[in-house]
């Protein structure tokens, strides 16, 4: 833990009770308006109910009344007994008093959704945030202000616009300075097959923020991969120590926003002119063996690979697809990340050729299966045979399922009914399990548009069949290999250190 965080903890002699923050049994929602009102706190109450929050919800508003069957307490003090956690969504000037009342009620923490603090750039905003910091130092941990809050599938805490997020837990944690990024990844991850341990949108980060949360997640047994979106850090030294310690234990994937070149700095020498924040951040992230990504999609794909693949380096792969160009694309992408496609020996080639459709197929590596309609059982056999090559550590199967649309049209059937995606998922998962060599699926999705909504629905179901069996799915071969490249870089460098 960094010096600042340690000093702050020591100042009230407490150990932060993250258990009561992420899995509260009694939670106050401060700022719920009576029937007919529609504030953030009302939205949060409905979202918590929709997702099935497992604890007790206690609504608070000085005006009293009731909302959605909850009697609204006129003050926190009226609530009998202690609370574990609170969501505060009252106007900014009222936040310090509400927070102090939560502290007196024994809350371990509170998230402040309200905006109108330091981010406004006004003296009033800064002063209010300073008050939050002072109250926090007396013994309540604060997430926010100006944030979307916490999503924790295990307890059913959810982000402000997160009524429809999954209750299924998984290994991915996400720390985000941006509320929008937090909900975007939660939704993106939902259909991609990412499952979350904890998502924390910490906004202005008046109290809890990147360095301390990294220390917590590094120790958190529910978290196997840490992702983060960061714009600026409160203390570069604390952050450096925290992320280095975390990355020594589990993968840390970082999307840095707001990178600029040296522009604004006074520059005399060449070194400073080259040392803009982009170059420095890039160097620092490599120094601590964090995985640096350039977009939220790349972050999600890296998390998918980290959370679905074993913790190791994949030096050699086999690529299987229908069409020579797909194989060439796989080979080119693999080379860019230092991954080999070893050429198969002649006896293995012969055994592969015996089961591949003729003509048009090629039994080298990449394996060209000639057309997109090869039965799943044959593809399963190809995967099992290719896995016999000791140099193959992982296989990439590219399947152009959208071509089934033309078959469906020809016979007047629904595309979802004739595409054997469930059988393929079953076969692939079994081949991966039996051979001990993971299979990564690539399901390109090139036919879109209003006339292809049936395909979109089928592709979504296909993806789900694979991901629920633990087979990661990517939309393009380049994305898959980039994600595998991140896994290789992380474990390769961790071992080297």
């Amino acid at each position, binding site marked *: 833990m960094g010096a600042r965080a340690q000093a702050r903890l020591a100042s009230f002699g407490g150990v932060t009770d993250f258990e009561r923050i992420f899995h509260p049994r009694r939670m106050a929602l401060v700022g719920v308006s009576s029937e007919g009102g529609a504030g953030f706190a009302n939205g949060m109450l409905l979202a918590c109910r929709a997702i099935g929050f497992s604890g007790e919800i206690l609504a608070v508003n000085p005006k009293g009344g009731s909302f959605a069957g909850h009697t609204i307490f006129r003050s926190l003090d009226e609530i009998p007994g202690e609370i574990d956690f609170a969501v505060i969504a009252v106007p900014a000037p009222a936040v310090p008093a509400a927070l102090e009342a939560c502290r007196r009620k024994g809350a371990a923490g509170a998230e402040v959704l309200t905006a109108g603090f330091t981010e406004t750039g006004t003296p009033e905003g800064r002063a209010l945030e300073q008050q939050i910091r002072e109250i926090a130092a007396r013994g309540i941990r604060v997430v926010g202000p100006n944030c979307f809050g916490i999503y924790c599938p295990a307890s059913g805490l959810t982000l402000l616009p997160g009524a429809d997020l999954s209750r299924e837990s998984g290994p991915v944690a996400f720390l985000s300075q941006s509320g929008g990024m937090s909900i975007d990844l939660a939704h993106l991850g939902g259909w991609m097959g990412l499952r979350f341990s904890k998502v924390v949108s910490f906004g202005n980060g008046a109290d809890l923020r990147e360095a301390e949360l990294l220390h917590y997640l590094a120790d958190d047994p529910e978290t196997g991969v840490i992702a983060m979106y960061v714009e600026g850090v409160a203390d570069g*030294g604390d952050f450096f120590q925290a992320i280095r310690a975390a990355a020594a234990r589990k993968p840390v994937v970082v999307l840095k926003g707001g990178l600029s070149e040296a522009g604004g700095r006074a520059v005399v*020498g*060449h*070194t*400073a002119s*080259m040392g803009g924040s982009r170059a420095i951040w890039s*160097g*620092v992230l490599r120094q601590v063996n964090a995985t640096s990504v350039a977009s939220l999609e790349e972050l999600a794909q890296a998390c998918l690979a980290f959370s679905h693949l074993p913790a190791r380096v994949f030096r050699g792969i086999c690529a299987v697809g229908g069409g020579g160009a797909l194989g060439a694309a796989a080979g080119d992408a693999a080379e860019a990340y230092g991954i080999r496609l070893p050429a198969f020996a002649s006896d293995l080639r012969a055994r592969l050729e015996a089961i591949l459709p003729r003509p048009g197929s090629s039994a080298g590596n990449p394996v060209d299966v000639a057309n997109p309609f090869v039965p799943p059982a044959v593809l399963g056999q190809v995967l099992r045979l290719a896995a016999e090559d000791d140099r193959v550590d992982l296989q990439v199967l590219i399947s152009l399922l959208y071509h089934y649309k033309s078959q469906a049209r020809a016979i007047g059937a629904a595309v979802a009914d004739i595409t054997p995606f469930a059988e393929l998922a079953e076969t692939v998962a079994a081949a991966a399990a039996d051979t001990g060599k993971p299979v990564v699926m690539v399901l390109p999705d090139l036919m879109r548009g209003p006339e292809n909504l049936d395909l979109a629905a089928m592709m979504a179901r296909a993806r789900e069949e694979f991901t629920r069996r633990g087979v990661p799915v990517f939309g393009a071969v380049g994305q898959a290999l980039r994600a595998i490249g991140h896994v290789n870089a992380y474990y390769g460098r961790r071992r*080297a250190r």
Partner: protein
Amino acid sequence: MPDDRITTVALLLEQAAARGQSTLAEHEAKQVLAAYSLPVTREILVTTRAEVAPAAGAIGYPVAVKASSPEIPHKSEQGLVRLGLADEAAALQAFDAVASALAGRGGGVLVQEMITGRRELAMGLVRDPDFGPCVMFGLGGIFTEILGDAVFRRAPLEQADADDMMAEIRGREMLGAIRGLPAADRDALAGMLIALGQIGLDHEGVAEIDLNPVILAGPRPVVADALIVLRPELPVL
């Protein structure tokens, strides 16, 4: 002794700040580097014409003659660097030109050994607002700016960090045995990068260090030119 080098450099920086300098002249910068065991050119600072021939004789021909002034951070752009001077006549002629261009500005004239090598690297130190002193390594000479092939690490650097910087630059093959040139002395390069970070950690008053070029004389890196920028807003420690 590490303590000695901190004291030596602190004194140099203090004196420069007291004179109102915003940068160190090349010769002063080299003294800072030498205190931290970075390999620098052999050189003698002269102020009069009469000193030139004995200095060049002691260094050995060919020599370089350069302005060494805190007021001229980028001297090659102003024609104040004369290289490959083969004899006394050439050295004296170069001195006359540099000294007259320097007239009225502080500093002196450096008579310096010529480092010959076909590979030029760059190293440096910058203070990042988030991460404090960060060390730079990249290709040197005119390639520094044209190719932008430079990487950074936060100080303090470990050996593995320095090794990784050499593996990360796009021009990393330059450090290997290529075209009849020997492989660069990586341990020496790593030592220099680690030492640069240490200077940044030990001396708050150093805002920036620019070593360009660092020439590979065979396998051996030598700092041929150096600029140290001081931090005006802080008292020098």
